[in-house]
């Protein structure tokens, strides 16, 4: 492996550590994922097209994209608000609240799923107040948005928080001393510096929502064509022993997540350059 080294060093163990890393990564990640693509590639193109253009599949992709987009947008706005309040203001219970922001990462998704369903069901703590207005939260598309907002909540907060902390207050002071209003300073000075972090958080939250399963299955109601997300459709196909269907939908889904991941990486590269400049 030494030929891969760009610079010699006295630190030992390069061959051993890199060899083990590559071996383990191949066994656990690369080969299983490659298996999925090989399996779906074995199908004729016509069949792949047929599987992916079935109305039920198209409807579930549309639903997944739309609800993920709405949830990520909600997280964009409220994530910025929460990050702002946590960084800029002092109030009692702040560090407790700061620690709790990561709850959706730490709480198993199945627990989140049954809890949100119970809260938003017709007789639930929140659902009972929505019922008189004819709003059906659980077992509807709104329920999916609620679950996806919950699981994506920490992303924007955690990407924006460190950038906001490092923000040089002098540029804001300068803008104020030159007579700019609060809103003007926020939109013209602060916001432009936060955009890369905001977009990264948005994309991460969106990517997480696309593949989410545990929290969604309980609250969605899972009606084909109406409230059936893609990850649930994959499971349904698998339970029907329709391996070709499950594999093809999964491969399409995976390709989309990789595109989102690529965008996230470009955004982070852009944000590093942005901060360096």
């Amino acid at each position, binding site marked *: 492996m030494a030929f891969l080294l760009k610079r010699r060093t006295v630190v*030992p163990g390069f061959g051993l550590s890199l060899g083990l890393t590559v071996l383990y990564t191949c066994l656990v990640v690369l080969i299983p994922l490659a298996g999925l693509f090989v399996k779906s590639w074995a199908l004729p193109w016509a069949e792949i097209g047929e599987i992916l253009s079935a109305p039920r599949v198209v409807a579930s992709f549309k639903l997944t994209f739309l609800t993920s987009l709405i949830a990520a947008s909600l997280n964009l706005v409220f994530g910025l608000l929460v990050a702002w309040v946590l960084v800029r203001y002092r109030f009692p219970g702040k560090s407790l609240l700061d620690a709790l922001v990561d709850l*959706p990462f730490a709480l198993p998704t199945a*627990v989140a799923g049954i809890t949100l369903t119970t809260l938003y069901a017709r007789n639930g703590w929140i659902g009972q107040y929505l019922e008189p207005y004819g709003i059906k939260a659980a077992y509807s598309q709104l329920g999916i948005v609620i679950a996806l907002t919950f699981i994506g909540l920490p992303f924007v907060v*955690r990407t924006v928080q460190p950038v906001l902390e490092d923000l040089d207050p002098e540029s804001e002071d300068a803008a104020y001393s030159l007579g700019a209003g609060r809103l003007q300073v926020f939109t013209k000075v602060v916001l432009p510096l936060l955009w890369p972090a905001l977009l990264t958080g948005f994309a991460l939250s969106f990517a*997480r929502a696309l*593949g*989410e399963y545990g929290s969604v299955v309980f609250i969605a109601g899972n009606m084909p064509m109406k409230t059936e997300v893609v990850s649930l459709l994959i499971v349904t196909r*698998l339970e029907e022993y329709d*391996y070709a269907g499950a594999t093809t939908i999964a491969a399409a889904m995976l390709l989309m997540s990789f595109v989102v991941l690529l965008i996230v990486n470009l955004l982070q590269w852009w944000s590093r350059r942005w901060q360096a400049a």
Partner: protein
Amino acid sequence: MNGIGTNTALVKSQPLVRTHESKWAKWGLTLLAFGFLGLFLLLPLAAIFSEGLKKGWSAYWTALKEPEAISAIKLTLLVAAIAVPANLVFGIVASWAIAKFEFRGKQILITLIDLPFSVSPVISGLIFVLIFGLQGYLGPWLREHDIKIIFAVPGIVLATVFITFPFIARELIPLMESQGRDEEEAALSLGANGWQTFFLVTLPNIKWGLLYGVILCNARAMGEFGAVSVVSGHIRGMTNTLPLHVEILYNEYQFVAAFAVASLLALLALATLALKKILEWKVRSESEARP
């Protein structure tokens, strides 16, 4: 749990609080943030415990003492006891290779390590069904030799290892990169061998970051639902982990029992958050003490 948020948390500095907003704007924004977090975090958290204790402590304990609940707890502990050490060793080895050496293809390797973060849990289970299931690549061979992986414990372990694969490596790589290799080179030039250098120089430097990664990895290993659900086959008392047991109870309308078991997982989540906060604080005070 994605690495993005957690990496930065380890090297955070105390914020500078200086604002120009009026008092009412501050109060309004704070209240709005509280409202959002209250609705999405505090209320669900309260609901878990309230629903679990709806019929009193005795019903709560009965749900936890059920033989099926006990076997779910045992299986969850077993799976974590395999997946976390496996990814711990991998995390250390991978971060040693990536942080201490400059080599071609490093970026590709890092991207590959990050990959499981962006794969849907359902797909993480599916890929192992495609390899080891009856219709899978190795299915016929496994059946001939009477080895069961899918709908059995090995499948659950494999899916969990895949899902939690990046956690520890993702914490250690930036930490070890920021520490460089000066201290290791000094130890080596003074005559220490490679293992001595690792155990006496590197490991003490990364111990808190390592623990941080282990805690996050463990929380995910014990709480994973989607991937495990696909490979488990839901055999009661046999291949049910705690999250799967919660699902079964809930689908059988045993709501109190479901939330009682769920509250165990919620306590695990809260303990994880508390330990995480303590470690962040510890790392910060240590890095400030260093010159």
